[in-house]
């Protein structure tokens, strides 16, 4: 089987073709989704709560299976991929970081390299490199438990863990959503620099329009399980699409509120 980082033929890292995901009880969380994620871009899935953005993300690493339609990763249909191999080639970061509380930071970051049976010295070097990359001094943090980290530090470790086996694709589900605004701004800034340097394909879920505009090279707008359109950040504020207008308006309202206070 071709590795995940083999250059896809059409420059498309992930492609959703007429994907629908329906709960066993009936309602569709994602309906007839057609979406292409280009290699090397940061695509932001933007939408309100319940718009289907997290569901879309979980369909991409097959934590959920589509009810109909097909998702292609690196040009190959998802159903052809070995589930475990596919996931190990896709980094995954979630809001609460999901670090293993019974493991040290070092062991958490080493998760996928260990699963892939890298030699021990290579794993150790890689963990140190990853911790440096996300701004945590390995000597100070490697031996700590997740409980001994702040929220921002946990998220940094989560990113380091997702990047450890150098996956070509990174899925991020509101990774900065639970952080205080100052820490969040720091991480957003660092992450933007990191993303442009690493040239990964990133799919980033958020409901924060500021974050979408700041981090996204392209924004996919979702509402009620449907894709309303994809926009470049500069197009997003100019479009007449009502949901995009609503998000743009919330941007101004937020600024207004801050001035009043």
């Amino acid at each position, binding site marked *: 089987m071709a590795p995940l980082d083999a250059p896809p033929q059409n420059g498309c890292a992930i492609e959703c073709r007429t994907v629908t995901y329906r709960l066993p009880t009936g309602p569709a969380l994602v309906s007839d989704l057609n979406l292409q994620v280009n290699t090397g871009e940061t695509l932001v899935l933007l939408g309100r709560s319940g718009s289907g953005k997290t569901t879309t993300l979980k369909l991409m690493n097959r934590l959920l299976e589509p009810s109909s339609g097909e998702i292609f990763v690196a040009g190959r249909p998802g159903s052809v991929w070995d589930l475990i191999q596919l996931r190990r080639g896709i980094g*995954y970061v*979630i809001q609460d970081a999901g670090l293993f509380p019974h493991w040290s930071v070092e062991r958490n970051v080493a998760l996928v390299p260990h*699963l892939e049976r890298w030699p021990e010295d290579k794993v150790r070097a890689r963990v140190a490199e990853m911790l440096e990359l996300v701004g945590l001094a390995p000597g100070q943090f490697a031996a700590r438990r997740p409980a001994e980290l702040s929220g921002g530090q946990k998220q940094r470790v989560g990113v380091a863990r997702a990047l450890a086996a150098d996956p070509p694709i990174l899925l991020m589900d509101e990774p900065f959503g639970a952080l205080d605004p100052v820490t969040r701004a720091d991480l957003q800034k660092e992450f933007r620099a990191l993303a442009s340097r690493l040239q990964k394909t990133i799919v980033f879920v958020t409901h924060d329009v500021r974050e979408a505009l700041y981090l996204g090279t392209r924004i996919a707008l979702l509402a009620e399980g449907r894709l309303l359109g994809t926009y470049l950040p500069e197009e997003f504020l100019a479009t007449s699409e009502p949901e995009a207008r609503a998000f743009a308006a919330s941007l101004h309202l937020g600024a207004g509120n801050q001035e009043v206070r």
Partner: protein
Amino acid sequence: MNWYDFLLRNRSEVLERSVEHVGLVAASMAIALVIGLPLGIALVRRLTLQRWVLGAANVVQTIPSLALFGFLIPVPWIGGVGASTAIVALALYALLPILRNTCTGIAGVDPAVIESARGMGMTPRQVLWQVQLPLAAPVMLAGIRVATVISIGVTTIAAAIGAGGLGVFIFRGVAMVNNQVILAGAIPAALLAIVADFGLGAIQRSVAKR
């Protein structure tokens, strides 16, 4: 004569009965663990079946111990008077705390941790052994601790159906209206329970800290 004079004078029989007692507890706990742990793990995601099994184990737990021994005596193969019937009854008693705590311990693991484990490409087996079981271990150990202490207590009653153990002194003492004989069984049994509770509690705390 004081009760400890009696205890000293009969120390070889007290020791023998204590060993018997511990043997009954160990055998029944071994059976309960071999059945309870895998069954509990298998039931984690099968909620309907879990309700039924826990319900059944709960009913067993509710049956008074002497009555349970009585129920088992006429059962072919396992029944009859003696240690084997007692071990079956004791294992049935130990099953509920082990099953329940295995289920609740695993179900109580943070879903975000499980989701990221699966999302990072761990196989279901790896998720179970490397994530769910280590994180559920303190709760599971608490169940084993409760089961062991209950078991030590109920085993004293097993003497009534000829299984031996420290209960022999208690029943004999009651029949003889002799407090010293009663205490020669009751005090070692109580000490066993306290030591087991303390020891397993220490293990539980050290596992929780890891």
